[in-house]
Each structure stands twice: as structure tokens, then as C-alpha cells.
């Protein structure tokens, strides 16, 4: 049933009043419930805009002031604050003053980062500002009580303190501590926020023990023991007071401080010794950049108990969590008493390096920004090989990274280093060698990688080095060494482009491989002398510990041919002492190394050697010579050589000579037996010095045939019977020889016949007196016969025949003294050898056994 119109009209007239009443009520409720409304609105804003749940109890809200009993932000109440008092200017919408009675922050550190749960995005956004957008002056903020609890995998850190920011002055005190005094952090800050303020004052001190959680929080490796004390003094740089203070007003944080730290007995798992370290420097924190204009650090211990390390330099860190990076340039000096690298011990190594270090993308990269040096006073490889002279390795300046240390090394990117080392010379001594060996290494590269297994693999590559030793005299040029080592094991390949050895041996080459396991070195090498198309192998081992070694040499047969390959192609010095050599040599046997030097048991086989050796022409010399010492050449005692013919001005044949060579310069000949003109020749023991201007050997001759002597002199027609004995002194010069008044006598009476018909033309028509004289010789019975013999170096030989006796058909046997001298040259006659010469059995046995 419809209302009467006036009611509706009254009602219709009354409805604007009704609206105002409602509004007023709302306003009243709003006014009275404004606190609840505001709290509700704020919570909604925080939830929607930042996704942060929150609870607010606003006690009083009016146009100028708000009192908030309690605030809780974050799902886990990460931030709780109580009795908060805000003063604000409603029109300008600016907040003049915030006062908080107590604020509790409950954060968690999960081992990787610090988190406030839900609040993180909001915090990132709020702190992401940075271009100082809002120019409005900061409200004064007073936090009467700040309580921080930080849960970390190593326990909970609790901290409390207070902070006020009032009219541009910041004052704060804060202390953080861990249970069991694991760490204590104190912050005192008093600074003004404007640019032109007096010196800000402020100090942060941090005391950490080894098991504090702050280590990992600050991104440092956790030590097992020791303590660290760090403090920073907020101080503007002396010359620039304006560069100080905290410019929060402009939204840019700017903090300059002098800092220092000292750590005592810090022990880390990988470090063999506890480390004591202290350092100091300056730091300027602006926004997300930490600039360390200068720092210096001194440390002892760590990598080795007596290591002393000094670092000076400057650094720069970008603290933006996404692009976190550190760059530092520093000078590093380090000394230690000794250091080991595999089998090598270095004495008092000293490092002096200028490094540029970059930490980015989880990797530390180091490059030498200047030429640096690594020096050591001495070094030893095992107890027997020593580097006695101080040596310096220069690490070349380069723009490439030299050393990479990933935070988490794995197979793809292990810890790796490779640096170019500059020229250095080393001097190596070992008891086995009488004099030191010099290694001149112009350049090379050294490197190492450490895989996840922690075992370092190191490489060393050296190019065109030179090795010189004086005893024995040996020079090896463009030597390349490439070495790979891991743990105690090491593999090495060595190549010598050209080497020359004692008495001009070479030029040769060498390709060697060696491996070192602990102290045991095993090596094999191919040693060639290209000009002689000779190549020898050497295989064996050397014990660095005991200094004992053995290398088996094998030089297969080398055949000399007159006009072709000659001994001088093997060893230049032999050019003066050998000529037109034919025959074959070979060598086989061990070289033995021990404390008192290098000896050997090498069998040097000489087979059918002929040609000129010094002044003496030889034919078919055979021997197996035992060499006791390769240098200076020394043979075993009582060596024997057989020779078909030795021309010492007179043809000595079928000889067996006993000898010994000492120190490569002394040839001692023992009593030896040879033959001549079907008589026996005994060589008196004598010691010959190689290269002496002149030396004499004495041949005692027994019953040589007079007839064979005349044959030798090619006096056609003259024959005789009887045998001669006596002495033949031979003078040996380096390139010639002379027979110096040989004297022979007939043992008893004999007869001479001279057949005029066969006289050479010169004599046949020489006139009557000669004819008469020769007729005396036609059938001469001598009772005494003496022969004088002289041979000059030129080969001119003079034979003096002194006979006394008679010729029955000459003045019917009247006594006659006959002196015949024959002058001429014998050499051609001497060249022919003995028909059917057989190498003596004892020598043939040795020859057979030596080439097994």
C-alpha cells in the first residue's frame, strides 16, 4: 500500500539532511576511528604495494601527530617496533620527526645471504634509490633502543644499541655479540649530514674468534683457530674535510675512514702454519663503491712457518650484489727460509711482484702489472744436486691473466696459473761433476693447475736455453725443456739443438725423455752426431737421494772410409792426429755416477783400423778397450791392441801392444812384442805424453834377417845371410818421427853376395873404382858386421854397413874393411803388409763378445 504523498515528500525533503548526518557520522567515526582506519589503510598499502603483511596499532592520530603503539612487519614479524611517535606536516605531506622507543629486527643468514623474509623486496626497492631523488630534508629520527637478532647456521648473534639523526647530525652506538664471546662488534658514530660539517667522529671495532659466524657473513674463509681484531676510525682525508660525513640527505652514503686490523695465530685448513697478520689503510664508502686508496698488510706464517709477507697497494670494490667485484693493484714482497716444490727445495726464496688482482664472477684473476722477480739464495734437487749461486727468475709484465683462482674450482675451471718467466742463469753443482754447470735460460713459461683433487699439476717450458759445463767441457745450445709435474712425479722432455763435447766431439743433437718419481729419476736419450751419421742411445736412472746413477750407452758400429767418414767428423780435435782412417768402431757399456764422480765400464771396439795415427802409420789394428772413465779418458789397466803393421820408419809387424791411457793425455806402453824382418822386437815400457814436442821409444831388436833388411833397401843384387840384433831408438814428433842412430850387429860370421848383373843402372855404369869395390863383395865372408841406421823426419834414410872379413877371390882373401852407405827413401817399401795376417785369438774373442 503506497505511502501518502506528503510522507514521501517529507521524506523526500528530509533526505539531504539524512546524508549529511551519515557523513557526519562517518566523519565522526572516521575521526574517532581514524586510528583504526589509518592502520587498516597502511596495512593494505604495505600488503598490495610491497606484499608485506603487517599489523599496526595506532593509538592516536591527528592532523599533526600520530602515536603508534606497535608495528609488526613481515610474515615472521621480522621487524617489530613499539611506542612510535610521528610528527608530520599534513599540507606539505612531510614528516618532521620519527621517534621509536624500541625496534626489534629479526634477520636470518642462511650461509649465502642475509634475509628479512618478506621484507627483502621492499628493502631492495627502498635502498635501490641512489640518485638522491627526494631533496626533502631528512626528518629527525630517534631510535631509543635497537635490538638485532641474527640467526646463522653457527648460532644466533644478538645486538643492541641506539641511533639518532637529528638536524643533520647522526649519532649512534651499537654493539653486536655472539654467544660464548665468539665475537663482539661495537659501532660509535657521530657525524653531521651536511657537506660543510666539522670532522665526523666515529669508530667501529670488531673482535672475532675463530668460530664466529661473522667470518662467513663477511665473505671470509672460516679459520680453525686464532682471533681477529678490526677497527675503523671515521675520518675525513686530512686535506679535504668536505669529503667526510654521511650525505644521507642527498641519498648518497659517503663514509671515509682509516681502518686497521690484526689477526693472531689464525689457522686455516689449507695453511700448514698459523698466521699472524696486521694491516691498515684507508677506505671511502660511497653508494655501492668501496674505494681503498691505500692499504698495507704484513703477515707471518701461513703457507710456511717462517713466511714473511708484505703487501702495499690500493683497491676498489663494487658492492652491488649482482655485479659484486673487487680490483686491486698491489706490490707483494715475500720471503721465507725455505720452500719445497716437488723434489726441489729452495733456500730463502724471495718474491718481489707487482700484481693487479681482479675478483669478479666468482674468480680471482691475477696478472703481473710490472716485471717481478723470484730470487732464491740456493736450491737443491735431492741431497746431491745443488744450485749454489743465487738465482733470479723474472716474471714478465703482461696484460693476460697469469693466475686464476676460482672460488669453487672444478674440472672446467681449476685453479690455474701460467706466467712467462724472463731470462735467468742458474749454476748447478753436483759431487759427480768437478765443476759447476751453468744453465742460461733466456725465456720460458711456468704454469700450474690445481684440480678439485687438490693435487697441483705444474708445467715448465723453457726455450733456447744454453747449458755449459767446464769439466767435462760441454756446451749445449738451443736447449728446450718441457716439464710436467704432479705431486712427487715429474715427466720431462729435453731437446738439445746442438751440443759440442770434449776434444771437439760433435756437433751433435740430443732428444731425451726423463721422469722423476720422488728421488728416482729414469731417463733415456738418443744422441746423434749428424756429420758422422752416428747416433747413440743412453738409458738409465739416477737416484737424487743417494746421488748414484747408471746410464747404459750403446753406440752401434761407425765405419770410417778414407775420403769418406773420418774420425774428425766425430771429434774435431782428431783432425790433427788421424788421417785416412779405415775400419769400424763401436761402444757399449754403462756410465756410473756416484759421490766421487763419473766412471764407466764402456767397451770401445776398434775393428780392422788402418791409417795414420799421429806420426805412425798402422794397418789392421784391433782391440776392445775397457774405458774406466769417459772424461778425461782413462782406460782400465793392461789393455791390449793387436796390429798387423806399424810403420815407425821401419815396418813392425804382427804386434801385440799393452797400454793404458790416463787423464786423456798419458799413454803408458807396457813391454810389448812385435816382429820385424822375421826377427823379434821388444818395445821397452814407456810413458808417452799426448802432444809432447818430442818423445822417444826404444825398440830392442833380436835376430832380424840381414837378407830381409837388404830387400827392404831394395839394393838389387845384394844378398846376405846372418841375423842382426841391437837397439832402434825412435823419436816421435806430433806429426812425424825419426830414427836416431839405430845400431845393429851381426851375431856371428856370415856371408854376403853381390851380383853385379842386377845392379841398378846408376851403379852398373859408375866407373871402374865402383866396379872394383863391388867385385870385392861378390862373395864376401864377414866375421864382423855392423849396421848404422838413421831416418830423418823427411823419410830420407841412411843405412851404414860396416863389414870386416875377406873375399877368397879378391886379392886372394886379403882382409878387407868395407863401408857401404846407402841413402834413399824406404817408405814405399814399408806400405805392404804381412801376407795372411791373422788377428790374434785373444783379441778376436773380445771382438766377438763385445758386439753382443
Amino acid at each position, binding site marked *: 500500500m503506497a505511502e501518502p504523498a506528503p510522507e514521501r515528500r517529507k521524506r523526500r525533503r528530509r533526505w539531504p539532511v539524512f546524508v549529511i548526518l551519515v557523513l557526519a557520522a562517518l566523519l565522526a567515526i572516521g575521526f574517532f576511528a581514524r586510528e583504526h582506519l589509518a592502520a587498516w589503510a597502511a596495512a593494505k598499502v604495505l600488503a598490495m604495494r610491497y606484499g608485506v603483511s603487517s599489523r599496526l596499532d595506532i593509538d592516536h592520530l591527528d592532523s599533526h601527530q600520530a602515536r603508534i603503539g606497535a608495528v609488526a612487519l613481515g610474515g615472521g614479524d621480522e621487524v617489530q617496533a613499539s611506542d612510535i611517535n610521528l610528527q608530520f606536516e599534513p599540507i606539505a605531506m612531510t614528516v618532521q620527526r620519527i621517534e621509536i622507543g624500541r625496534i626489534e629486527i629479526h634477520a636470518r643468514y642462511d650461509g649465502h645471504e642475509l634475509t628479512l623474509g618478506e621484507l627483502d623486496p621492499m628493502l631492495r626497492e627502498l635502498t635501490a634509490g641512489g640518485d638522491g631523488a627526494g631533496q626533502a630534508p631528512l626528518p629527525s629520527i630517534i631510535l631509543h633502543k635497537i635490538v638485532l637478532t641474527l640467526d646463522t647456521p653457527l648460532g644466533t648473534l644478538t645486538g643492541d644499541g641506539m641511533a639518532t639523526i637529528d638536524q643533520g647530525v647522526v649519532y649512534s652506538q651499537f654493539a653486536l655479540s655472539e654467544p660464548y664471546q665468539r665475537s663482539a662488534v661495537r659501532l660509535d658514530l657521530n657525524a653531521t649530514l651536511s657537506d660543510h660539517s666539522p670532522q665526523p667522529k666515529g669508530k667501529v671495532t670488531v673482535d672475532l674468534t675463530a668460530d664466529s659466524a661473522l667470518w662467513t657473513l663477511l665473505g671470509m674463509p672460516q679459520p680453525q683457530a686464532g682471533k681477529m681484531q678490526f677497527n675503523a676510525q671515521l675520518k675525513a682525508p686530512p686535506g679535504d674535510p668536505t669529503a667526510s660525513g654521511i650525505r644521507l640527505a642527498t641519498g648518497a652514503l659517503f663514509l671515509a675512514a682509516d681502518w686497521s686490523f690484526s689477526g693472531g695465530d689464525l689457522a686455516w685448513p689449507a695453511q700448514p702454519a698459523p698466521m699472524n697478520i696486521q694491516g691498515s689503510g684507508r677506505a671511502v664508502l660511497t653508494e655501492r663503491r668501496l674505494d681503498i686508496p691505500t692499504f698495507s698488510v704484513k703477515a707471518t706464517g701461513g703457507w710456511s712457518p717462517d713466511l714473511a709477507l708484505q703487501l702495499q697497494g690500493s683497491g676498489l670494490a663494487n658492492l652491488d650484489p649482482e655485479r659484486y667485484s673487487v680490483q686491486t693493484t698491489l706490490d707483494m714482497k715475500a720471503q721465507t727460509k725455505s720452500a719445497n716444490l716437488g723434489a726441489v727445495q729452495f733456500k730463502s726464496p724471495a718474491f718481489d711482484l707487482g700484481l693487479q688482482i681482479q675478483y669478479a664472477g666468482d674468480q680471482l684473476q691475477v696478472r703481473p702489472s710490472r716485471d717481478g722477480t723470484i730470487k732464491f739464495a740456493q736450491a737443491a734437487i735431492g741431497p746431491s744436486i745443488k744450485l749454489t749461486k743465487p738465482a733470479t727468475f723474472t716474471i714478465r709484465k703482461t696484460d693476460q691473466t697469469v693466475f686464476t683462482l676460482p672460488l669453487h674450482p672444478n674440472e672446467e675451471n681449476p685453479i690455474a696459473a701460467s706466467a712467462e718467466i724472463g731470462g735467468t742463469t742458474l749454476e748447478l753443482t753436483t759431487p759427480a761433476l768437478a765443476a759447476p754447470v751453468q744453465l742460461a735460460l733466456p725465456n720460458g713459461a711456468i704454469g700450474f693447475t690445481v684440480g678439485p683433487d687438490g693435487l697441483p699439476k705444474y708445467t715448465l717450458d723453457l726455450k733456447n736455453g744454453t747449458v755449459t759445463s767446464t769439466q767435462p767441457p760441454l756446451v749445449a745450445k738451443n736447449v728446450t725443456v718441457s716439464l710436467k709435474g704432479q705431486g712427487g712425479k715429474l715427466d720431462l722432455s729435453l731437446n738439445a739443438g746442438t751440443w759440442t763435447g770434449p776434444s771437439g766431439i760433435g756437433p751433435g743433437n740430443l732428444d731425451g725423455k726423463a721422469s722423476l718419481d720422488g728421488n728416482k729419476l729414469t731417463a733415456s736419450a738418443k744422441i746423434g752426431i749428424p756429420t758422422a751419421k752416428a747416433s747413440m742411445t743412453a738409458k738409465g736412472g739416477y737416484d737424487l737421494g743417494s746421488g748414484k746413477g747408471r746410464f747404459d750407452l750403446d753406440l752401434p758400429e761407425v765405419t770410417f772410409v778414407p775420403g769418406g767418414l773420418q774420425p774428425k767428423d766425430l771429434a774435431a780435435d782428431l783432425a790433427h792426429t788421424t788421417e785416412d782412417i779405415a775400419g769400424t768402431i763401436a761402444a757399449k757399456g754403462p756410465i756410473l755416477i756416484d759421490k766421487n764422480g763419473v766412471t764407466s765400464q764402456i767397451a770401445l771396439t776398434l775393428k780392422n783400423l788402418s791409417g795414420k795415427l799421429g806420426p805412425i802409420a798402422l794397418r789392421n789394428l784391433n782391440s776392445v778397450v775397457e774405458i774406466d772413465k769417459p772424461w778425461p779418458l782413462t782406460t782400465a789397466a793392461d789393455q791390449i791392441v793387436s796390429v798387423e803393421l806399424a810403420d815407425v820408419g821401419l815396418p813392425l809387424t804382427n804386434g801385440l801392444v799393452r797400454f793404458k791411457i790416463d787423464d786423456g793425455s798419458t799413454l803408458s806402453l807396457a813391454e810389448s812384442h812385435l816382429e820385424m824382418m822375421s826377427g823379434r822386437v821388444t818395445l821397452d815400457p814407456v810413458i808417452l805424453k799426448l802432444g809432447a814436442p818430442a818423445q822417444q821409444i826404444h825398440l830392442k831388436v833380436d835376430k832380424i834377417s840381414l837378407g830381409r833388411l837388404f830387400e827392404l833397401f*831394395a*839394393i838389387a843384387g845384394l844378398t846376405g845371410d846372418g841375423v842382426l840384433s841391437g837397439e832402434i831408438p825412435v823419436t816421435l814428433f806430433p806429426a812425424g818421427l825419426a830414427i836416431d842412430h839405430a845400431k845393429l850387429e851381426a851375431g856371428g860370421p856370415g856371408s854376403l853376395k853381390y851380383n853385379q848383373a842386377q845392379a*841398378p843402372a*846408376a*851403379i852398373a855404369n*859408375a*866407373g871402374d*873404382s*865402383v866396379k*872394383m*869395390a*863391388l867385385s*870385392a863383395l861378390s862373395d864376401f865372408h864377414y866375421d864382423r858386421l855392423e849396421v848404422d841406421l838413421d831416418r830423418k823426419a823427411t823419410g830420407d834414410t841412411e843405412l851404414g854397413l860396416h863389414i*870386416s872379413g875377406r873375399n877368397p877371390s879378391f*886379392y886372394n882373401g*886379403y*882382409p*878387407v*874393411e*868395407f*863401408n*857401404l*852407405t*846407402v*841413402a*834413399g*827413401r824406404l817408405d814405399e817399401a814399408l806400405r805392404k803388409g804381412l801376407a795372411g795376417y791373422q788377428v790374434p785369438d785373444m783379441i778376436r774373442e773380445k771382438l766377438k763378445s763385445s758386439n753382443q
Partner: protein
Amino acid sequence: CNPTVKVEAPDKPIVINLNVKIEQEVRIKVDKDVESLVNNNPNLF
């Protein structure tokens, strides 16, 4: 060549001296060349 002979009185044994020189042409030539070699290189010989 020029062999020389001397004969003495018979109260002592007859003494006969005979010198024979065997010459080779090769040697004579070489002799001259060596002589000129020595004299043409004063600072060497």
C-alpha cells in the same frame, strides 16, 4: 849420382868406402816447390 871410392895401402886391411844415393825424381821436384813455399811466406816460416 856420384859415387866416390878410396883405396889404401895393403899393410892394413883394404878399406873400401862406397856411398850410394838412391834418388827419386818425384822428390827433387817436391823439394823445389817446398823451397819456394818456405821462401814465399816469410811470416809463416
